Every structure is written in C-alpha cells, then in structure tokens.
C-alpha cells in the first residue's frame, strides 16, 4: 500500500512538469480566444475552422463544446467573471437574458453581409446583440426509399393525409414515426409547428401573440387551434411504435437511416447523424401539418443559434476580427455550407451539399410558408417546462384540458419571473 502510494506520487512528480509545461506553453503567441459553444456534433467542423484560422492569422481559438450542462456552465462562468470571449445562445428571449454581457454589433461592417431575415432574431431594442450562426429548418424528414417501396407517391400536407400515409405504412409492417418524445427539446419543436400559422392569422403577428401570452391577456386554453397541436401529437404517438415515450434523438436518426421508420420530426442538424449511420440513405423534407389546411402547412425556418461577443473581453477586437473573417474570407464564407453543411446566413453564400438544405430551399421556392421559430420568443426556460408538460400529455398523465391548464400556469409563472 505504502509502496504503491509512494510510486504513484513519484510518477506524478515526474510527470507534473509535463502538465505544467503544457499549461504555459503559449506565452509569446498573440492572442488566444476563449470560446464556449454547444452542438458537440459539430466538433470536427469547429476544429477544422480553428486550424484554418490559426494558419491564416496566428490567433488560437480555444473552444469548449458542451451540450446538456451548457447553460449552468455559462451562467456560473459569466457570473464569476470568468467570461468567455465568445459564446453561444439562442436568439429572441436570450437577447435580454445576456444583455449585461454582450457587445452591440450594430456598427460592425460585416453585419451588412448578413441576410436581414436572419438578423431579426438577434435585434433587440435596435441593437444587434449577436451574430446569426446558422439558418436552420425543422419539420418532418422522411426516408425516400421507404416511401417508394410502400407506394407512397403523393407527399402528405394535412393531418388527414399524414394519417392516411401512416395507416398505409403500418399496414405494410413499417413503423411510420420515431417520436423523439424523450428529448425535451424535440417535443416543443414538433408541437409548436402545428400552430405556427395561428399567430399571424388570428393574433396580429408573432410579437403581438407572445406579448399577449406574456401579459396574461391570452391563455393557451383560449386558443381553439391548440387542438391542431394535440391532434398531431396523438397521431405521432399512435403510429410511433411500441415505446413512443422512450424514443430519443439517437433512436430517431438511426431508425430513419436504417429504414426501420419512415418519418421523424427533426431539423437539418440531424442529417449528419442520419448519413453517418447509413451513407446511402436518401432523405427528403416534408411540410408539417397545421390542422387540415394544406395551404398553411410549412416548415420552421429561422436562425436561432447565435454567437455572442463579450463586451468586456480584453480580446474584444480579436473576437470581432474573427467574426469578420468568418463573414468575408473565402474559407469563412464557405465554412457553413461547405463543412458544416447547413444553410449560411451570409448574403450570397453557396448552397450546401445537404438533402434537407436543398429541399428546404425548394419548398420555400415553391411557396410553402417558412415560419420563424416563434416559441423561442417565449421567456427563457419555457422550452424545457412546457416540453415536460407536453411530454406528460404524451405519456398519458394529463388530458387535453389539464394539459392546457398546466401550460398556462407554467407560462404565467415564468413570464412573471422574467419581467
């Protein structure tokens, strides 16, 4: 025992110069930017960009990539003063969450290179509070081969059409959907899309709609079209296999890729995982049903993931230079379409080699509505809370009426706290 301990200590002492040396190795280098990002599935792409930037400018980006604990880590680091030079968050409601920390990009020249539509989510009180990272879309992804093999030629648009397709698939022994209900972020994405047409049609636009919800003037239980949302969840659950509440992101992507299921509700970020599982897979993008009106069936299309620059950073200029490089340099402009393979918010950027990105553009060009991610305008924290309540509905814990009451109660509380 003693010998072992002594041995261990000796080993440690012998090796600690290595560790220490590692910690101070880059003293004479110009700048190291400290970056906190999420989306670990993009780690390889991040690394590629970091290497390229270092080659071009000599500046190092030290990126930490997290997922589930991202918010708690960011909160404690901001709070303690250990502020990363560059970090990420959602758009809309998060603009005010991080207001004390972010730099206003309004006067930066490179912001003019960004599509005005993509900037909408980051503008707050006339300030550009962040840099739109990607333009993303979510709706139903389907496996083209499975559709072909089962003789489905007309793509569904309405709830009834989706049900007919699901029935047909089920009769042929193919599971129609993998639900993703276990993930608290998938459920709200699926659900809110089903009423994406309602705010503009009935409540004078998204901002007014969310404003009414925030002030309590509007309750979910008073919105008759909430039935569209429940109908869609019921449908997915009914045709979602034997364990609908246990399906997570992994299950969705691998089941779709292998052809075990025909459709999943997901976004373009899922494409990479799907193609990793089965490189030969052919996938397409469907509009999501908003009740039984085919004209309003659309996709959710927005820029939500936002890069924020810390205003008190001692490397502020270097951080801005990096964003400029990302927007204007040859590599930078091409990074998102070429490497990340998603849609870039930069004006005139190339189209990515991605099934979903291509079909997104095609659907929008054909006149299908592209709705903003309006649920991101809800106060911070509603995504998880309302997601859990909807999950309870899908697990049979509450009926529609109880679910609506629970949604209203949770929303009112968070809205009050956020004031």
């Amino acid at each position: 025992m003693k010998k072992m301990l002594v041995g261990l200590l000796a080993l440690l002492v012998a090796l600690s110069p290595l560790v220490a040396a590692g910690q101070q190795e880059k003293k004479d280098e110009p700048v190291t930017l400290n970056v906190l990002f999420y989306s670990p599935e993009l780690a390889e792409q991040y690394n590629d960009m970091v290497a390229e930037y270092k080659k071009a400018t000599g500046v190092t980006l030290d990126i930490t990539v997290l997922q589930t604990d991202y918010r708690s880590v960011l909160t404690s680091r901001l709070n303690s003063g250990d502020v990363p030079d560059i970090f990420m968050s959602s758009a809309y409601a998060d603009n005010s969450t991080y207001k004390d920390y972010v730099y206003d990009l309004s006067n930066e020249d490179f912001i003019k290179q960004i599509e005005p539509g993509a900037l909408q989510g980051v503008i707050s009180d006339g300030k550009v509070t962040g840099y739109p990272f990607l333009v993303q879309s979510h709706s139903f992804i389907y496996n083209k081969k499975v559709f072909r093999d089962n003789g489905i030629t007309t793509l569904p648009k309405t709830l009834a059409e989706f049900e007919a397709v699901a029935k047909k698939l089920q009769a042929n022994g193919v599971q129609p959907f993998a639900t993703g209900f276990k993930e608290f972020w998938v459920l709200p994405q699926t659900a809110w899309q089903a009423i994406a047409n309602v705010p503009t049609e009935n409540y004078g636009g998204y901002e007014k709609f969310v404003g009414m919800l925030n002030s309590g003037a509007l309750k979910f239980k008073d919105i008759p079209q909430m039935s569209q949302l429940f109908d869609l969840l019921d449908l997915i659950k009914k045709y979602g296999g034997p364990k609908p509440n246990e399906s997570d992101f992994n299950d969705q992507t691998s089941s779709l890729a292998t052809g075990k299921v025909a459709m999943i509700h997901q976004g373009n970020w899922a494409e990479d995982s799907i193609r990793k599982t089965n490189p030969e897979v052919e996938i397409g993008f469907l509009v999501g049903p908003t009740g039984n009106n085919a004209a309003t069936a659309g996709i959710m299309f927005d820029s939500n993931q936002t890069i924020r620059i810390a205003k008190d950073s001692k490397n502020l200029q270097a951080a801005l230079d990096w964003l400029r490089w990302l927007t204007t340099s040859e590599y930078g402009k091409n990074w998102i379409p070429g490497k990340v393979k998603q849609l870039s918010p930069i004006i005139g950027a190339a189209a990515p080699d991605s099934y979903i990105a291509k079909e997104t553009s095609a659907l929008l060009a054909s006149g299908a509505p592209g709705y903003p991610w309006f649920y991101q305008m809800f106060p911070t924290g509603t995504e998880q809370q309302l997601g859990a309540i909807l999950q309870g509905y899908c697990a049979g814990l509450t009926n529609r009426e109880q679910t609506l009451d629970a949604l209203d109660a949770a929303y009112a509380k968070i809205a009050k706290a956020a004031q």
Partner: protein
Amino acid sequence: MTQLRRKQLNRGLVFLLFTLPAFAAILVSVEIPFLMSVVSSFTKWNGLDKAQTFIGLENYKELFLDDQDMWKAFGFTLRLTLGSVIAVNLCALLLAVILDSDIKGKNVLRAAFYVPNIISLIIIGYIWRFIFSAGFDSFYQKTGWEIFMLSWLGDVNIVYFSVLLVSLWHSLGFYLVVYIAGLQTVPRDLIEASMIDGANRTKRFFRITLPLIMPSITVCVFHSLSNGLKAFDVIFSLTNGGPGNTTTTIALDIYRTAFVINRFGYGTAKSVVLFLMILILSILQVRVFKRREVEV
C-alpha cells in the same frame, strides 16, 4: 499566573494550528458559497444580471403556497428515498448474511457486486439507457418475453422501478461491504451459545445478530437516506426527469429553477429548504436508530 496564562494561550494556539486548515478549507469551498446563496434566496435574480432585487420572503412564500411542481418533485423524492432505503438495505443485508457464511468464492462474489459502485453515475446512466433501448430490443427478439417490450423509461407506471433498479444496482456493493463488516464484529461465542440453546437460524438472526449490527444499520440508513434526498445524477442522465416530470427530484427541480428557467434566487430558496429537510430527517433517523443500538 503568567505561567498559566501562557499555557492556556499555548493550548489555544495549538488548537488553532490543528483545526484552522480544515476550517479554512471548508469555509472557502462550502460555507461561504452557501451563505452567499442564502443571501440570494431573498432576491429576485436570474443569476446573470449585475443587479439583484431584494424581495424579502417572497421566494419562500411562493415555494410553500404556490409551487405544485416542487411539491410533486418532493413527493417523488420521498417515494424514491423510501424505496431505495428499504430495497438497498434489505438486499444488502440479505446478501451480506449469505456472503458472510462459509461459501466458496465469496471474495470473487463480493468484488463482483462491488464493481458497479466504482463507476460514475453519469456513465451508469449512459450504460443503462443503452441497455433499456438497444439491449432490451435484442433480448426481446431472442426470448420473446413481453417484459422486454415494456417501456421501461417511457411508461409513467414503470419508470419509478427502472430508476430504483439502476440506483440499487449501482449502490448495493457499498452497503454490502458495510454489512459484511458489521456481521464480522458479532462475537462468535454469542452465536455458538445460542446454538447450544437450540435457537433456530431465523430466531438467532433476529434475537442476536440484528441488534448487534445496529450501528451498521444506522450508518447505512443514514447514507441511503441523505443520498436519496439529494438524488440528482442518476435521474439527470437516465430520464432527465421525464416522462412529464414524473421522475423529477427536488435536486433536479432546483437545478432547473436556477439554470434552465434562470430563477437563481428562487432556486436557492428551494435549496435552503432542502437543506433544512435533510437536516431534520437525518437527526430524526439517527435518534431513532441510536436508541436501538446495543453495546457488546
């Protein structure tokens, strides 16, 4: 007089020399941060803004009068704690009794039951998610048993047992080891005396062994109780509180209040209440159990 004074002073200095390092370390890592949090519990603060608004007892009022979610989480935490305290202690005690007897390969067996205890709960959650999904599907294809087709993490009536099963699997080894040690302290002569008296096995266990290993039981129950009340990691990585908040524990609720909804002040108020709850329950439990301990 100066002699005495100096002696006292000297003794005081030595006392400080020995205790100050621990005091300083604990103050820095736990108590100062906790007091800072207690101060936040009287504020409305999102954990981020530079300004905190003092609101007095509002957070505590909301907590007791108007927070169903928290009380639901409280209920689940109590059920989980009760279940795991009973299950883990019964199973561990039973196994310990068997492994304490003359059995071949008992060292191998002890090691086998202990190994899951070494692995961090984050990884355990990961492993079991894999087993409940991919593993059970394969089992079903092989055996055709309906039990593998149940939705172990998705059915609100079953998920309690899944969580219980995983935490039992993880922690059993630790308690097993403590009970085996306790059993080994029971004097052999007492057992032999009772054998001569003709007491049968069961009687012997309840009349002699059980009272004598009461200290181990106190320790194990205390441990499992406070671990149950603070349960976080296993839930976080296994169910994330779902489906529909049915497996949300208080610790997870606190975490979410503070970091997901960004109500940091309110979250700390909840944690102060949790602290008091653990304190009271622990004191009660130790009192009750200590009374039953017997000295050899």
